């Protein structure tokens, strides 16, 4: 072991600790009424992890139902736009069933819920992708499904709302606060506090109280595990850098985590820069926030001087969140990962260029990572010969209304 200050170095496979902490971050900051059920969930998860039958079934379903492994796909024409002799691969989570990485976690948690004998599933959703994934898995496993979604998000993601309903879910509109993802989480937690005995909360991102950041990371880590094998097969070496968009941070931690022990691989999370970096106009939590407690965990937060949670803005509903998963906060502080910001215009440009050069329309969320790499390339910041992986966390079909509006096209 090298001489490192252990306290300030990210050690692979060490987190969270038994109290659900990642360094100073994470933990369980929830009403006491949830403590017993979180302990129950923790025990059930540990048990499932050690049960070969559960792991076998998960593997089988990921293959035949979700369509894994998703490909690690070389994009030569896009690479050329980024820089000379730059090679970019996309981890194609957009090809997973339901069109985004969210299904990996929903499947795992759904199987866990069934194992725990919980029939009533609640979940929050922003862009609707986690809502759709949850509704999908509930339909498949025969579970009741209630999705909380902010009124603003319901309007900008009407297609996904319809998909959820078609899959048999009840979609509950949330009118409190900013009427977006954070308020949907508040309302889902209130439901859980009330119906704690019967209900399983299928949390969609690698945030929230312990053990969720760990459970979601573990179920999403399949992305990075596959990508690592695939890049070794296809290139015979690890990539120089990995980029992923980050709202709550589930797709990012999913691809980062299995590479975290390889210090030569740079991990870069791209947050939503919104319309500007002025307060309330973006969702760049790690870039512009400071530590605090929201939704059950200590992590970076966008908050006022008085500790009130700030409004956020992003063109992509899935990144429109003032918090972030605690492991990302710890990766930031330890320097293991770097976090940057890409604004709405950069994301739109990324979406357009990838569509035209490669015939792949990315989700607006993923387009933040695409657009950021493109912009860095154009500014000459990507060294010649770089080998890059970008996590293409979802496909863009759901965003066509928003994109058309942004391009002033009447549909």
């Amino acid at each position, binding site marked *: 072991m090298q001489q490192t200050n252990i306290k300030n170095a990210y050690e692979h496979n060490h987190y969270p600790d038994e109290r659900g902490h990642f360094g100073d971050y994470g933990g369980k900051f929830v009403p*006491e009424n949830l403590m017993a*059920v979180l302990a129950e969930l923790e025990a059930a998860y540990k048990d499932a992890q050690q049960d070969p039958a559960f792991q076998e079934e998960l593997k089988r379903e990921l293959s035949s139902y979700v369509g894994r492994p998703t490909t690690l796909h070389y994009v030569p024409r896009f690479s050329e736009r980024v820089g000379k002799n730059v090679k970019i691969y996309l981890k194609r989570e957009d090809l997973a069933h339901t069109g985004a990485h969210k299904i990996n976690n929903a499947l795992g948690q759904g199987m866990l819920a069934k194992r725990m004998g919980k029939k009533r599933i609640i979940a929050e959703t922003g862009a609707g992708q986690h809502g759709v994934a949850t509704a999908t898995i509930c339909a498949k496993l025969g579970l009741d499904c209630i999705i909380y979604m902010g009124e603003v998000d319901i309007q900008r993601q009407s297609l996904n709302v319809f998909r959820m309903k078609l899959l048999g879910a009840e979609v509950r509109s949330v009118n409190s606060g900013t009427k977006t993802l954070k308020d949907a989480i*508040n309302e889902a937690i209130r439901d859980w506090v009330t119906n704690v005995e019967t209900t399983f909360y299928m949390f969609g991102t690698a945030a929230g109280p312990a053990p969720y950041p760990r459970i979601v990371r573990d179920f999403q880590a399949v992305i990075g595990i596959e990508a690592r094998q695939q890049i070794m097969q296809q290139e015979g070496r690890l990539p120089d850098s990995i980029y992923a968009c980050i709202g709550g941070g589930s797709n990012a931690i999913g691809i980062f985590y299995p590479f975290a022990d390889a210090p030569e691989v740079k991990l870069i999370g791209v947050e939503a820069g919104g319309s500007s970096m002025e307060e309330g106009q973006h969702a760049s939590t790690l870039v512009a926030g400071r530590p605090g407690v929201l939704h059950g965990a200590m992590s970076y937060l966008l908050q006022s001087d008085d500790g009130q949670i700030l409004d956020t803005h992003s063109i992509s509903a899935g990144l429109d969140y003032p918090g972030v998963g605690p492991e990302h906060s710890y990766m930031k502080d330890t320097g293991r990962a770097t976090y940057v910001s890409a604004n709405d215009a950069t994301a739109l440009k990324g979406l357009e260029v990838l569509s035209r050069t490669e015939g792949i329309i990315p989700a607006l969320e993923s387009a933040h990572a695409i657009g950021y790499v493109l912009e860095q390339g154009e500014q000459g910041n990507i060294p010649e010969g770089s080998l890059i992986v970008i996590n293409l966390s979802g496909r863009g079909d759901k965003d066509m209304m928003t994109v058309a509006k942004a391009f002033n096209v009447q549909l």
Partner: protein
Amino acid sequence: METISSGVITPENQQYPVGKITQTFERAHSEQRGVIIPYFMCGYPNIKDTVDIVLAAAEGGADIIELGMPFSDPLADGATIQHAGQVALEQGMTIQGCMDIAKQVSAKSDVTLLMMGYYNPILSYGLERFCATASANGVSGLIIPDLPVEEADPLQEIAYRHGLALIYLVPPTAPDERIVTAAKRTATGPGGFIYCVALSGVTGSRLELPAHLQDFIARIRAATQEQKLPLAVGFGLSTPAHIATVTSYAEGAVIGSALVKLIDQHKDDQPAEAVKMYIQSLRQK
């Protein structure tokens, strides 16, 4: 804890003087009645009226008053207190503003004050600064609904050092061992009580008391026997009849959302007077 010669008194063996909360319960006990604990959101319906309302409640016979601190994301609260908090924030209420209200109230009244609110604004204000200011402004204890014992050490240590009780909430889903832990922690501090959460759910008025409430209180009583802590019941209590029933088997009763609604009804018509009369009606059994 390394050496005894350092002279440092660790929190475990530090002895606190009997706190004002304990005295309040003892006084009510000697008068053979329950402790009435109303909750008011600081800044609702506006900043100026809060002080008058709190003072009126004290005059009406409230023993302990919870001063609610608004938070943008109150996940343990139902619609009524959510709304009150939102109004308070729109009025410009801050943690400092809540501190100022405590100061103004304690300058004019000897009523026992608690501050209740979510952890993030307190953390943001600074734990040390928060406890020092609260204590200096006449506050006796804190209730933080999103701070379970597992995460409470940093605040508890500072709060106790400043003579503030940290009140733990115990809901029906809490196993006995967690109740015991809360009781032990409370007993090591400057007095306090166990806040019994009457139901599984968020704050807000309910028409009926939960069916098994008395059994639940009996379970907490058994688990906290060693510490002999007073028990106060909150969440869902909305009528004088509820208060009377609850104080027949617990030492105190908290009433929150029902008061917010009362203030709402009298917003433009002397809310303080309405609150005073309501509290008086609770005291006349």
